């Protein structure tokens, strides 16, 4: 048994070398499919993380007038806190705000040099109670807040988040459909490649049958070959996506930290790599299993 398995594996590798061109074709198709799929998964994972991040973050910012005194601020805080719609609030002093602003400008803060005085006011970042769901309710809360003396302006971006949510859903559905189509496509390619391989090895298969090889013995190397095509294809895809990820990681991370408040981008972890490899092997196996059905028809 062990000897047979060893022979099948060896034969698979040998056959791959013998039909190099066809194998390269199948492997590149699988690699391409998975490059697209893996990229999509990475983007989607990050988008999902971003979505939850935003959903949990500040939902409303209350800017106070620059003229507000500490007692004004204290009064405003108490008033805001007393509102049932407000779950929590976080005070951001004008100095902190300037600091943040400088950080955002990063290197270009020369435009701030002319300022002797901080142009920003204090602000509160609010998280609202979960009952506040739509824009109308938000607007009502904002209106109430605006009536407070020290309040200059109220900003909220819920609509934007919702639009992002919708976009995310579209992205997700597109991704699933696209991945499905690509899978079908590469399954077809693997299947076709193995059919071609089968045809090119017709004589060999006939001879194997004539000397008493069971169909299982003939099929196994072909299935191993299909599986190897899948695994190698996925490995190449993972490599390509990882290298591309490494190249854009720094600037992208910086960008996301600045504009989306996301400090840690999620890349491929070893577990999903293994899952993708298994998927590739499965794909190759499925393709070859479909193809080796044609083996029975070879008369010997």
């Amino acid at each position, binding site marked *: 048994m062990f*000897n047979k398995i060893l*022979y099948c594996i060896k034969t698979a590798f040998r056959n791959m070398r013998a039909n190099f061109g066809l194998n390269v074709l199948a492997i590149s198709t699988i690699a391409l499919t998975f490059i697209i799929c893996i990229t999509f998964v990475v983007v989607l994972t990050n988008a999902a993380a971003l979505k939850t991040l935003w959903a949990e973050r500040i939902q409303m910012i209350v800017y106070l007038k620059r003229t507000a005194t500490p007692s004004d601020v204290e009064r405003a805080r108490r008033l805001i806190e007393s509102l049932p719609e407000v779950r929590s609030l976080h005070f951001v002093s004008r100095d902190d705000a300037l600091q943040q602003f400088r950080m955002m400008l990063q290197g270009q803060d020369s435009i701030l040099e002319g300022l002797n005085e901080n142009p920003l006011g204090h602000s509160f970042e609010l998280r609202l109670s979960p009952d506040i769901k739509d824009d109308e309710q938000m607007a009502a809360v904002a209106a109430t807040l605006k009536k407070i003396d020290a309040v200059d302006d109220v900003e909220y971006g819920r609509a934007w988040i919702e639009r992002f949510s919708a976009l995310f859903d579209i992205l997700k559905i597109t991704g699933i459909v696209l991945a499905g189509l690509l899978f079908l496509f590469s399954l077809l390619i693997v299947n076709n490649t193995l059919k071609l391989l089968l045809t090119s090895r017709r*004589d*060999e298969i006939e001879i194997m049958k004539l*000397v008493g*090889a069971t169909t299982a*013995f003939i099929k196994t190397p072909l299935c191993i070959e299909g599986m190897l095509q899948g695994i190698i294809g996925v490995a190449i895809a993972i490599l390509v996506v990882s290298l591309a990820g490494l190249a854009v990681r720094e600037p992208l991370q910086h960008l996301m930290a600045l504009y989306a408040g996301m400090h840690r981008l999620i890349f491929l972890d070893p577990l999903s790599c293994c899952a993708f490899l298994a998927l590739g092997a499965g794909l190759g196996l499925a393709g070859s299993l479909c193809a080796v059905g044609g083996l029975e028809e070879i008369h010997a």
Partner: protein
Amino acid sequence: MHAIIEFHNVSKCYNSTPALSDINLTINKGDFVFLTGPSGAGKTTLLKLIFLSERPTEGEIIVNGVNITRMKSSAIPHFRRKLGVVFQDFKLLPGKTVFENVALGLEIIGLNRKLIKRRVWQVVKWVGLLQKIDSYPPYLSGGEQQRVAIARAIINNPMLLLADEPTGNLDPGLALEIMKLFKAINTRGTTIVIATHNRDMAETFSHNIVALSHGRLLEHSHLSAS
């Protein structure tokens, strides 16, 4: 003596054209039989019926006590491992070396490498091709390819060896060499059936001759027995 091959009223038609008609034949264990007849007489067809490459249209075939007429396809591989067949066109794998071609019959039963190596060397040496063991069939002469085919056929110590026109395109000297090989295999107890259109050669090497013509059995002579 025990029969190893029995044909009972066997007919074979290819698309309703008869290739063999009503054959009754018994070949005993240890026999050295020549199957003769002109081209198209049905020699290859008869051999194919024995190793189940074709099924009879009518009649029953018994090989080594087993009725193979309706043997399940899944049982054929195991049945074939007990036979050795030398094909009219050799059927060697051009992309595999002599060693690998001969080893094939042992690889499929899962023998370990060491044993395979020993056995293949032994057999290849016996047919006199040791110096060509790493060559590929397309670079061998007809006689050498014939010997590789024989080596592959006997690698499993078959009880029955079928050879189709094994001296077909060989010069008389080489044909003699090959016949000597078959004789030697026969003396070890293997039953041998050789198909040839060369009646003279058949008579030179055996007295057990089955003559076919147009798919019919003309005679089965056991000259040595008389």
